[in-house]
Structures are given as structure tokens and as C-alpha cells.
């Protein structure tokens, strides 16, 4: 049985499922790496890929393919397996019915939706009555070598205005963070602001959730439009601070 491709295929599938369902959320924390359960949509995607891989493996060789089909064929045709046939005949439609019911039954949770985390910025924005072209724009503090000044100013602004949501560690885990859905963006790591130019971050700070583009609406963002509370210089300073404090570099413009 151990060398039989049918049972090997089932074992591999179950092992992969255990890995996705329990391995990914619970093993990394054992070595100090944070993790979380894999969302159902991604789990389905992974398991479908594994299933296709298994089917390829069992059928890419004629001998293996014949052996793989043996147990299935036996259940389908052998008289002594009649009870098993009947059991499958009942169980499979029941399973399909249950999955269908579970999919369509009314649920109280909000439906899942696609969300663009990095919507495209406009070419230019107006802040404080002044038109600012974002394309090719550098942080003036960085361009003029006034990093220390920007850091000191940005630090004050961040702790007075941003920390409550984005957190002391800039990890999106501020005191108020769990009052929001979706949670405030973590600013550390390579996945968020590290991928963006400073002009993009400046735009997001200035215009907040209300200023998100029409593309991909409706938006879920409680981020205020900070142009109503901060000056242009203060917003550039806090932009500079975010990158310095998170220990990452902003995306730079390519040389033309």
C-alpha cells in the first residue's frame, strides 16, 4: 500500500493540506517568525494547485497511471465492493449538497472583496492652493540634504498624529488600530511604502481616505486628509521620518 500511487497521492494531498492549514500559521511562530491562518481563498488556490500537480504525477507515466486507477476501477466494477459503491453514491451527492448549501446560505459576515492596496496616484494634486506634479517629485528635505531637520520635525508630527493608529513600532498596531477594518497599514517591511516613491506617500498623507481615486471604489479607509491639519513642509517631514524610522529606502525614480 505504501508504494501504491493511489495512496501516495492521497497522502501527499493530506500532507499538503495539513501544511497549509496548520503548518503555515503555527510553525513559523515557533522560530520567532510571525504568521497567521491562510485565508480560505488562498488555501483553495494552493490545494487546487497541489491537486493538479498530483494528477500530473500519477498520469505522466503509463504504468503509474494504470496502477493509480486500479482502486477506483475496483470500487466501480467489483461485485464484492458493492457496499462501498453505494456509500460513495450517497456520500458524494451529500457532500456536494452540503458545500452548495454552505456557499449560498445567508451569513452575517461581510462579503469578501478585492481591494487595491496601492491605487494609482494622479499626475498632479492641489495642496494649499498650490498645484504639485507628483511625477518625478523628490522629497525636498532629502533633495536638499536636510535629513536631520526632517527627522526631528517628522518624529514630533508622527507621535502627535499618526502613532495612535500606525503604532509606536510603525507596524500598524497602534492603540486604536483594532477599531478599524481594514487595519491601518504597517509601514515596516518591504511590502508597503518601501515599494513606493516619497511623492506617492506624500499624496496619501495629504489626501487621506477621502482623496482615494475613483478607480476601485468604494474604499475602506479612515485615514484623514492631513492637508487640513498639517503644512506641506510638515507632511514632507513626516514622510521622511517614516522611511528613516522603518529603516527602509523609498523607491527612487529611474534615470531617463
Amino acid at each position, binding site marked *: 500500500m505504501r508504494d501504491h500511487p493511489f495512496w501516495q497521492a492521497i497522502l501527499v494531498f493530506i500532507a499538503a493540506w495539513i501544511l497549509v492549514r496548520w503548518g*503555515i500559521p503555527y510553525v513559523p511562530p515557533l522560530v520567532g*517568525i*510571525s*504568521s*497567521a*491562518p*491562510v*485565508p*480560505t*481563498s*488562498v488555501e483553495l*488556490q*494552493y490545494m487546487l*494547485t*497541489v491537486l*493538479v*500537480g498530483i494528477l*500530473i*504525477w500519477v*498520469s*505522466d*507515466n*503509463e504504468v503509474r*497511471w494504470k496502477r493509480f486507477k486500479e482502486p477506483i476501477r475496483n470500487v466501480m466494477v467489483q461485485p464484492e465492493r458493492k457496499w462501498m459503491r453505494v456509500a460513495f453514491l450517497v456520500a458524494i451527492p451529500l457532500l456536494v449538497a452540503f458545500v452548495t448549501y454552505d456557499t449560498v446560505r445567508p451569513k452575517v*459576515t*461581510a462579503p*469578501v472583496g*478585492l*481591494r*487595491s*492596496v*496601492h*491605487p*494609482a*496616484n*494622479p*499626475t498632479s494634486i492641489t495642496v494649499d492652493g498650490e498645484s504639485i506634479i507628483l*511625477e518625478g517629485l523628490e522629497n525636498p528635505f532629502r533633495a536638499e540634504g536636510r535629513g536631520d531637520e526632517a527627522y526631528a520635525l517628522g518624529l514630533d508630527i508622527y507621535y502627535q498624529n499618526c502613532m495612535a493608529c500606525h503604532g509606536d513600532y510603525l507596524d*500598524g*498596531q497602534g492603540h486604536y488600530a483594532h477599531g478599524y*477594518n*481594514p*487595519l*491601518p*497599514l*504597517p509601514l515596516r*517591511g*518591504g*511590502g508597503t511604502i*518601501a*515599494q513606493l*516613491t516619497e511623492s506617492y506617500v506624500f499624496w496619501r498623507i495629504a489626501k487621506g481616505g477621502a482623496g482615494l481615486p475613483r*478607480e*476601485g471604489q468604494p474604499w475602506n479607509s479612515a485615514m484623514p486628509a492631513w492637508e487640513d491639519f498639517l503644512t506641506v513642509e510638515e507632511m514632507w517631514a513626516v514622510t521622511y521620518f517614516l522611511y528613516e524610522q522603518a529603516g*527602509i*529606502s*523609498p*523607491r*527612487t525614480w*529611474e534615470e531617463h
Partner: protein
Amino acid sequence: MRTTRWMWVAGILGGLGLLALFSPLGAQTYSPPTYGEDFPLIGSRAAIWIVAQTHLMFAAFVLGVPMFAVVTEAIGIWGKDERYDRLSKEFTRLLLVAYSATALLGGLFLFLLVTLYPALFSYLSEIFKVSMWIYAALFFFESATLYMYYYGWDRWKTGRAKLGHWGLGILLNVWGTAVLFIANAWLTFMMSPPSDVTPDTAPAMVQFWSAFANATWMPINIHRLIANAVFGGSIVAAYAAYRFLKAKSDEERAHYDWMGYVGNLIAIGVFLVLPFAGYWLGREIYEYNQQMGITMMGGFMSWLWIVQAFLIGVLFLAANYYLWIGLGRIPGGERFSRYTKWMLAVLVIGFIVWATPHSMIADRDELAAMGGTHHPFLGVLGLMSAKNTAVNLMILTTFLSFLMYRRANKIPTVSWAKTGTITQGGLLAVCSAVVLFYGVYGYFVPTITRIGFSVYQVLWVLFTILAVIGLDLFIMRRAESRGPIRWGQMPERSQYALFILVVTFTWLMGLMGFARSGIRQHWHVWEVMRDTTEHAATPALGYAAQVISVCVIVFLLMIAFVFWIGGMIAKPQLVPDPEPVPAD
């Protein structure tokens, strides 16, 4: 009293003047409308979308198949293998019918453009009129060359005449490529007009060459050129699969099994370099305009890349599956079958990494557990560093499958064969290590540096493929055969892999074409001419997928009709070969 009368006269004359001004009789000149009446039922945008996309698929077919034909004819001439010549002719015959369909759809597309979007067409034709005349003229040359190429096949069959005939095939490709490049200029201008063109610039004032050779013109040219060759090969393979499944004799089965193999070889062989061209195009788009780049890669269109990753993963799996099954009909192939499960593991893991979204679809509880849409552990797989690494390793694995296939029934006779094979293995191992190194190191450098790493990964993979195949040519010189390939002894399920390839390629063309075109959002010409119709909003992805699926079904039905018609013109002549060996 007199004054009152004059006031009456003046009032009546003024009223008549106003009436004349606002009545049709008062119109002195005809001014064309910006848009025509909306197309019934599906709207103007869907109408022009479906026709343009189907036309494009046919255009890709009629430009891709001549590339395929000229390569297989060359193999026939220099490899002295008549089967390749017959194969080439069989497909050129189909071109005759496919050309008509392409031209008809092109005409329909033009009429729809003129009647539904007259102002846009007028604007573009004002800038590109000369190239439009040349475009039409090239069709005459192309058609004439095609007729000479096909009808002269048996007349110019040997010696210098055959070389001349092959030259006609090259010429056919030259015309086709010129046509492609011209049409690409028009559509890329809509995407990336030169920066000095503004909404106030009169079309007559736009410099022709700067509009023609705009920022994304050459990347699109190269990307489409390569993709057309891939598409041509995959259609040939699917045609062969269909004929294989319908075959009634072993001879017929052997012929179409071999044809499927050649089509697949060309499709996947060329496909391996396609991601590099796509990468260049994406980079140019980002460089041209950040907003467009973000819409494509991080914004609204980013989900299409997950779909694309899924479909390309399917392509890799299907292509390798076909090759691995094929090892069963090659004497000596069995010695490689034990490696396939490890290669499959690389492909499946690569597929999983490649298709892992950066921001995940999750419900409220799942989002709360993850702390947002980014998974704290799997989130790293959502970045380009991981994805580039995965796809490069998948390319190397697919290349390895081809190499195994190539070597399956051969016994090298050169004295240094073992050293050469170890060197090949070493090159592949070093390349994989370098690709992995840049993939991991990419997480520790600024984004702009990381983007540069993908170029190094690509160059390493290309160098390795060329070096290994070059070495293999020398190792297998005067190699002995373990026995002939048993063409036709292929399980039927293998042929469905070839169908999967063509359907997936066609679907990918539609989806990614939508991404390229859709990032213009509500602009006909980016930031120059705005779409002011009710259809200006970028369509939702679900709707787009439906329209594209309709295009794919329409195209596949039409191409099946073309094959059927082609089969009525003449039956293919089968040329069995007792010792067919994969082309060197």
C-alpha cells in the same frame, strides 16, 4: 408711430435670424459628431472590443504561422527531411483562408471605429495618415507574396529555386512584421503619446516620427513578435492534437503526433523568452508614467496579474506534462522518468509562489487575524523578488524537460561526454543558485535596486540556456541512437495538454491585452483625448473576463472553421519516417 413700425420690422427680422441660426437650414457646414450612436444591446465599447480582440487574435495567427512555416521549411531544406517541408506547406494552406478572416475582421473593426468613434479616428488618421496608406499597400505585397509562396511550393521545389522559395517565406515575414509594427505605433500612441502632445495640440502639429516611435512602441513590437510565434506554434500543436484524436490509421497518428511535438517545441521554446520581453514592456510603461504603472501592477489591474500567473502556471504544467508523457514513446526515455517528480515539485512550488497575491482576498475575521490584507508570513511571496525567482526556476525546469526529451534516445560517442554532461549540470545548478541569491538578496536592498536584479536573473537564465544547448549540440554530435521514437504511441490524454496550451495562450492574449489597454482608464489617448461616453469607466474585472471569454470562444470557433475549410482544399500528404529524431 414710424418708430414703432421699424421696431416691429427689426423684431421680425431678428426673430427670423435667430430661427435660421438654430434651424438645420441655417447650418452652413457639416461638423461630425464626436461619437456615433451607441451600438445596440452591448454598447459601443463592447462591440469594438470584441471585434478588435478577435481581429488581433487572427492577426497573431497569420503573422505567427509564417514564422513557424519558414522555420520548419528551413529545417526541411537543411536537415534534408521532407516531412518538415510538408508540414510547412500544410500550414501555409490554412493561411490562405485565415487571411480572408483577418482582413474581414479588420474591415469590420475599421467601420466600427469610423461609425462609433469618428472623432478619435479622425484624430488618429490626421497624425498617422501616411502610415495608414503604407499599411494598406503592404497588404498587397503580403498577399502577393503569400500566393507566390503557396502556389509556387511544388514548382520551386529543388536546388536554388527552393532557396528562392524559402526567401519568399522570409519576405512574407518581413511584410507581416512591417504591418505589425505600423499598427503597433497607432495603439501605443494612444497609450504613451509624446510628452509635448497635450489636449490643445492640433493633430496636424504632432510630429509624425515622435508619435510613431513613442515610448512603448518597440517593447510592444518585440513582445508581440515573440508572442505571435508562440501562438502560431500552439495553434499548430492543437490542430495536430485534433487530427491525432480523429486519426484512423497508425500512419496518420504518427504524423500528427510528430506535428504536435514540433508545434509544442516551437511554442514553448519561444515562450521561454516571452516573460523577458513582457518585463521590458512593463518597465517602460512604469517609466513612461508612474500612475499607469501603478494601476497596472499595484492598483486596479493587479488582480489580472494573479490570473495571469495562474494561467502561465497552467502553461508550464501542461507543456512539461506533454513532454514527460512523451518520454514513454522514446527508447531510453524511462531513465529520465524518475526525475520528473522532483521537477514537478519545483513547478508546483513555483506556481504557488507566483500566484500568491500580495494583498489577499479575505473575510473580516481572516483580515483581523492577518492584521490587514498582507499575510505576515506569506506576504513575502507577494513581492516581485519571489515571483521573478519562481518564474525563472520554472523556465529552467521546462528547459531541462526539453533537454531530457532531446537526449532520451541518444548515446553520445564523444570521449568527453561525461565531463560535458557534468558541466551542463553545473551550469544549471550555478544558474539556479544565482537566481535564488538575487531573489533573497532583493529583500534587503531598495526597490529600485531590486528591480535591477531581475535583469541579472534573466541574463543568467538566458546565458545558461544558450550555453547548455550549445554544449549539447557538441556532445550529441555523431551520437548513436537507442532506437527510433515510436511516433503515434502517445496516450490520448496527452493531446488534451496541447488543447489546454492553445486555449490558455488565447485567453492570456485577451486578458493581458485588456490590462495593457485598460490602464489608459478613461482616456482614448492618454491625458490628451478623454473618453466622454457612458462607457468611459474602466470595466470591472468580472465583466472584462466575460467579454474576453466571448472573444476566445468566437476566435476558436472561427479557427476551427478555417481548419475545416483548409481540410477541404487538399488532404495532407503523410510522409512517414522510420527514424525521426528531434531536430538538432
